[in-house]
């Protein structure tokens, strides 16, 4: 058990180191700004492709690395640290889903959906294959991805479909961080029978939503680290009243709270990854808790990071907003605190007060 753990840890460390290097080299402040202005970061994306990260969960016989999600997903936290302006986690998860059911996985940006809870999407069988109707909302980079891996309930059960977004009417918006979020309307769009497969038994209607929540939690955990580090750095450099800001007690107290929230959010995300790695039956609760905790940390930490920076942090020139605008966006994607907390709370209440503590010990994977 421990040997296996060490091996796994070693592999994760290798992947993390190489991801860190890639983002550090190719995802600068300018890259992020340019992406927001509409310029796709080709070099970054191609390197991520070449390193195999994007097809990490695609089976080896289909050209991927065939890794377990818990091994590659920690790199999503690193992408979050660098505010990587690409559908990194989305492509990994979409590739996983398509690969799982034996659909082709193009080496290109991908998305998965629906990413909202009240999707009107319907998939119904016809003579030529399947008919797709309804709306996919909020699809990340939905105007530039090559395929969307869609999970849809049909009369014949849950289906996985590989959808070409070019067949939809597109309405492009952006989130608070300027990342594309696209609504796609399908009207009697014909999907070839070969592009639709039954979902495996372990994949449920909410599986993608859970993965989405995990991705955003990981990204937020990373963005929190960046916000903390920027605040620590800035307050050590800026002189006021004859000394660095970080010598002032009020500033110190803010930094400590910011660091505490960052630490807690990262621990919560580790918990979810741990549950995933162990195949725990409580993985859904662990992911829900991670989203609740990172969302809560985002609120407090973004405020304090800005407070510590004064006006410079409010300028476009300073990169703090790359982290904070993403925190404010990501906390509302794939469920806010109330949504997930109601789910966790209901599970706790259903288990009963006597079972509260046993449930807590299981959910934390300790």
């Amino acid at each position, binding site marked *: *058990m*421990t040997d296996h*753990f060490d091996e796994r840890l070693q592999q994760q460390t290798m992947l993390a180191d190489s991801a860190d290097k890639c983002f550090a080299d190719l995802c600068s402040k300018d890259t992020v700004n340019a992406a927001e202005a509409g310029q796709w970061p080709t070099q970054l994306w191609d390197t991520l492709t070449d390193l195999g990260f994007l097809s990490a969960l695609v089976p080896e016989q289909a050209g991927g690395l065939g890794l377990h999600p818990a091994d590659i997903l920690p790199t999503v936290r690193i992408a979050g640290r660098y505010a990587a302006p690409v559908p990194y986690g989305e492509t990994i998860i979409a590739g996983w889903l398509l690969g799982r059911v034996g659909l082709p996985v193009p080496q290109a940006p991908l998305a998965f959906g629906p990413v909202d809870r009240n999707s009107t999407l319907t998939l119904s069988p016809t003579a030529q294959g399947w008919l797709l109707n309804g709306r996919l909302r909020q699809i990340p980079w939905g105007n530039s991805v090559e395929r969307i891996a869609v999970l849809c309930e049909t009369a014949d059960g849950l289906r996985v479909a590989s959808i070409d977004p070019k067949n939809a009417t597109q309405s492009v918006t952006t989130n608070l961080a300027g990342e594309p979020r696209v609504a796609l309307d399908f009207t009697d769009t014909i999907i070839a029978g070969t592009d639709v497969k039954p979902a495996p038994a372990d994949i449920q209607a909410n599986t993608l939503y859970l993965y989405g929540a995990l991705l955003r939690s990981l990204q937020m955990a990373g963005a929190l680290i960046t916000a*903390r580090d920027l605040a*620590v750095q800035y307050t*050590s450099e800026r002189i006021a009243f004859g000394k660095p800001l*970080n010598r002032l*007690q009020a*500033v*110190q*107290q803010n*930094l*400590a*709270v910011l*660091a*505490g929230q*960052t*630490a*807690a959010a*990262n*621990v*919560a995300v*580790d*918990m979810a990854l*741990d549950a995933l790695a*162990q195949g725990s039956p409580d993985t859904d609760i*662990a992911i*829900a*808790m*991670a989203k*609740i*905790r990172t969302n*809560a940390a985002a609120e407090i930490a973004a405020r304090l990071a800005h407070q510590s920076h004064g006006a410079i942090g409010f300028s476009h020139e300073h990169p703090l907003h790359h982290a904070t605008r993403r925190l404010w966006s990501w906390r509302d994607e794939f469920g806010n*605190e*109330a949504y*997930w*907390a*109601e*789910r*966790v*709370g*209901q599970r*706790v*209440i259903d288990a*009963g*007060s*006597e079972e*509260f*503590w046993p449930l*807590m*010990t299981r*959910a*934390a*994977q*300790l």
Partner: protein
Amino acid sequence: MSFAFSVPPRSPALNELRIEVREFLQEQLAGMSISQRAHSWHGFNAGFSRQVAAKGWIGMVWPKQYGGGERSGLERYVMLEEMLAAGAPVSLHWTGDRQSGPLLLSLGTEAQKQKYVPRLAKAEIFFCIGLSEPDAGSDLANLRTRAVKVDGGWIINGTKVWTTGAHLKHYMIMLCRTQARDETNRHAGMSQFVVDLATPGLQIRPIQNLAGEHYFNEVVFTDCFVADDCLIGTEGNGWKQAMGELALERSGPERFLTAAIMLQELVRLASKYPSQRATIEIGKLSAQLATLRRMSFSVASAMQQGIDVGTAGSFVKDLGSVFEQSIPDLARDLFDLGELDDEDFLGVFRYVMLASPSFSIYGGTREILRGIISKALVAGH
């Protein structure tokens, strides 16, 4: 230690111990009311402490030679949190297990170890902590209690205050000056002593807390003689020794489980009076609790591996006390207490609400902990 709080792989042996502790507690605590259980960390019960000792759960990690169990720090962690989660009356033996025993084992002479540690492990003797003084709280270096060298020992004069459980315990490990105060180096010239609380000249005066309960005391030393073999470690090195002791104090599960019984009670109320708000708040508290457990577990694991945990404990205690204090505030907002007809819950509420101000004061105030965290951030570790 970085700010990452990593956790080792889950060990099945820990689960077995967890079950064993749960079964033990189910039997031992059968007759206790829910409001008594809520007192857990402030529950003094020598009979119970002896039962815990008989299971080998005091000094679990200490060498067998001194009555310990030579078990792992993580096993100890699991045992501790199960005790608190069940509301066991652990107060009498807690400080001895957490800090007095380890201090004696690392700095005591062979004779001291043999004299105190096996009896600590058997719950025959209990220890309290004598740090704070009327003019020395957060600014502990301002302490004045003075020990003067005499033939064969020391004469101590001064006053310790807020000493939890001094009236129920047998020994105090205290910090005082053994040299005149040096204004240019206030940390110099201090030493630690183990003092028998029955020493002539030592007077224990109760201090009632705001709830009218008697847990802490003022301990006055008037020409108290302690023998040479009561000095712990090195004369003059007391400040450093005491700071090492404090590091053991801040990361444990008692820093976020003081209100564990109240949480359990909240779950009961939420099923009796269902509401979406209560469900949501319970979900949020659960997420915080799970996170804190992993942080605390991570520190226990690092300490077990001999890794310097530095400020990690301060993170746990700061976040933990904010969490604990939020629970009674939330409870009153969720379950309109003026209308609530549930004496079990109200008993628990009265205790936790009134105890809650202390959560962010004892063991280092919130502001002091945040100062420590901030300095570590600036230093980059």
